[in-house]
């Protein structure tokens, strides 16, 4: 009996740990004083521990990686396809390298530039299933709010109720988990801190900034309320990722289970 309980406990622990994947959509600075060309990196990783960097688009039935399904920006309500700007890279994590992408974008005009990437589902062998994280990130130019609060009607989406680029350390971020434009009640949300500097020139993760006192602090979690809304206090400057798990309508891919998740990244600043 003890053995059964132990196995079950271990299974739960590994399941929980294995779910802490985050599609990173990174740029160094989300609140720009003026328009400029920005660097973006797209990496499927574990942002706190960086214990493994995944190959984006990995499939179970072929060695060929599947292409990114969508990558676009919305600015003043206008959507622009950016898939052609993606250049495949080998991104070096602290433990291994994985296939990701680099891109550049001319964030020239004043206002919000709302980025969305929808990678192909990724085959996670340890779960014998696929994960697809539809990911948002917002860059603002010169302080004019335009698009950050737009609902895009994505299959899985976190609608921010706080501008994701204007958050002081110690304040909060509020969002609504949505699927195809409708709130998702009691959605399960995982939260991780990007615990490493990213070297854009080397396409590499730097060393860890902080150490978790215990595993519970690596991937934090909460449950949205009956309206899909959640609020989380942000204790440290840097990038924080929120992932609402399995909220999209697609639950199967190539005959295997699919978790279609919504991810949003927010950047927190110290008051100096």
């Amino acid at each position, binding site marked *: 009996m003890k053995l059964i309980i132990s196995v079950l406990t271990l299974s739960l622990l590994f399941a929980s740990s294995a779910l802490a994947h985050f599609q990173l959509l990174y740029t160094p600075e989300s609140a720009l004083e*003026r*328009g400029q060309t920005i660097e973006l990196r797209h990496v499927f990783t574990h942002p706190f521990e960086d214990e493994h960097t995944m190959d984006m688009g990995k499939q179970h039935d072929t060695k060929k990686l599947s292409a990114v399904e969508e990558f676009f920006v919305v600015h003043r309500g206008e959507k622009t396809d950016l898939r052609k700007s993606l250049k495949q890279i080998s991104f070096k994590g602290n433990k291994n390298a994985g296939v990701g992408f680099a891109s550049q974008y001319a964030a020239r005009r004043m206002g919000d530039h709302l980025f969305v990437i929808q990678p192909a589902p990724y085959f996670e062998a340890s779960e014998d299933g696929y994960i697809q994280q539809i990911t948002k990130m917002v860059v603002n130019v010169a302080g004019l709010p335009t698009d950050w609060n737009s609902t895009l009607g994505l299959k899985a989406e976190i609608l921010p109720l706080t501008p994701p680029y204007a958050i002081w350390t110690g304040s909060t971020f509020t969002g609504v988990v949505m699927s195809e434009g409708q709130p998702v009640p009691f959605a399960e949300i995982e939260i991780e801190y990007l615990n490493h500097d990213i070297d854009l020139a080397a396409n590499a993760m730097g060393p860890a900034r902080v150490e978790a006192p215990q595993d519970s602090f690596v991937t934090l979690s909460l449950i949205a309320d009956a309206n899909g809304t959640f609020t989380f206090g942000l204790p440290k400057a840097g990038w924080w990722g929120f992932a609402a798990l399995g909220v999209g309508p697609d639950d199967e891919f190539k005959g295997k289970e699919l978790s279609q998740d919504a991810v949003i990244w927010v950047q927190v600043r110290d008051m100096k």
Partner: protein
Amino acid sequence: MEKLFFTPLMIMVFTIAAYAHTPLMACFDEGDGTVTCEGGFSDGSSASGVEFLVKQGDKVVLQSRLNEFSEINFEKPEGDYQAVFNAGEGHVVTINGKDIF
């Protein structure tokens, strides 16, 4: 009587709204001898029709207004200049030409 009461109330509301946010402007060099400036307010409201000036010292070399998209394009002056977004007292943004690129 209802209308007479309502109108001053609405004016008060709009006056408060107009002063409760920060004026914003960003400019960039188009690389073709012209400069584009965009204006707005921190609550996202339009700056269409707001006065826009280009100054060289105390001399105003261009006096115009932002268009329906809250922007303006003008020929880049020779030498030092300032782009000025003038939304009224306490709501002025000035950018030096040397900071526009």
